[in-house]
């Protein structure tokens, strides 16, 4: 069951990469350029939350790498 979930996830990635016709022209990027439309709007807040949940739960990351480990888990 675990393998099939992973395969599903990888197929999502493969599908997205096939969307080479999707997107916008260079001059239509005004909204995407806004600070609040960035994938990580506040790096510090994301790092703080990652650290809290890393020390209280068994999962971590997903977005990328955190700043580093700690003795809290």
């Amino acid at each position, binding site marked *: 069951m*675990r393998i099939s*979930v*992973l395969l599903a*996830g*990888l197929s*999502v*990635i493969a599908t*997205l*990469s096939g*969307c*080479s016709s*999707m*997107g*916008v*022209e*260079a001059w*239509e*990027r*005004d*909204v*995407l350029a*806004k600070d*609040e*439309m*960035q*994938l990580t*709007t*506040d*790096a*510090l*807040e994301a*790092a*703080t939350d990652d650290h*809290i*949940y890393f020390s*209280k*739960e*068994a*999962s*971590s*990351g*997903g*977005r*990328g*790498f955190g*700043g*580093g*480990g*700690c*003795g809290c*888990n």
Partner: protein
Amino acid sequence: MSNKNKLNITSALAAATCTLLGSGAAEPVQAQEELGWGFNTALLYYGEDDNRVQDLSLSVLGQRTYLDDKFLSLGLTLDTLTGASPNGALPQSVAQTFTQPSGGKTYTTPAGEFPYDDTFRDTRVAISGNWQQPLGRMSLFNVGASASKEYDYLHLGLNAKFSHDFNQRNTTVSAGLAISQDELDPVGGTPTGLTEMISASDDDGEDGEGGRRKGPAESKDIIDVVFGITQVISRNFLVQVNYSYSDSSGYLSDPYKVLTAVDGVTGDVVPVPQLPGIDGPSHLYYYEHRPDSRAKHSIYTQGKYYMDGKVLDLSYRYMTDDWEINSHTIDARLRWPTGDNRYLEPHLRFYSQTAADFYTLSLVDGDALPEYASADYRLGDFDAITAGLKYGWKTGGGNDMSVRLELYRQSGNISSTDLIGNQVGRDNYPDLNAIIFQVGYKFGK
């Protein structure tokens, strides 16, 4: 064309313009790009109820853009941790006494209460650095390092990431690698897994009976790889999907946590003989023991959607590992502008995980000891919810400031079939209720 000729264009152009505009020579232009240091600072308070963990931390992130789109960021975090943590044992109808991790002393939990070890006061310093630069027109390269130190723990790490844009920058693919080498030097030495908790006077620090040894520090090595795709779907909609794999090996147990051995029928703790003049645990407890390797897979997907000034940020993460833990995380944020440079941002997060296969509430006295076992609530089956609100504004000086308040609640899912005897009537999972309060301030460039 020679250099001299080229320069003639500028002065010739200036002369021609002078003639055209009829005014005298214009003042020389003064234009600079906004380069310089920008700082992002945050003060965080994290507090659990019931006299449990409280954390106060200060973080500073400095960022600077250099010419040619090169980018440096440096981070520093200081935090102090106080308060008590569940030690893995269960509430009983009698008082329980445990040996402190540092040895030499014991502490007692009254009947009916969750056993907490409140001997932790720790301060941690963490630093990180990251350098980013373009590789050609469409690629980006990132390299970073991180380190942190607390009383019993040292972390050192390196990471690198490469990303490439194509399809008119509508698609970005990235690949990253991080390696960490951590060292744990437990207070009082490392206990041998699944041996009985030692007495307080068994503090000779030597190997042998007593189950603790003061040997070299334990080490833990972690490798993380992340692959990701970011895709612009439309003018208002952006999506990212990441796959991560993480491999940890080394000492993965928590040296301060124990499991209770209970009677197979009553489910109550088993007293151990108390020797005169010797302080020690009142009942039978075993130090926990986790496998020495762990492989995790995660799929993470995030979407950002702009609707009429508001931004919805929705993400989902699925994690599965070879400890049989599966987790789902759903995170939703809505940024709601409320006026000139002000916004409200409600936040909701749902989390649920299944227990590790070696997680167990207690061990049955008399049964053969398993190879691995842990009663650490963080490896159990539980759900968690976070609900919060953030408010952001621009100060008079034009800097961004924000405050956020969040409530985090964790509650265990223990099925009655896992319970033995009198455990049925008791609280077996140390449900968590915590407050997160953070003030953020950005200044500089």
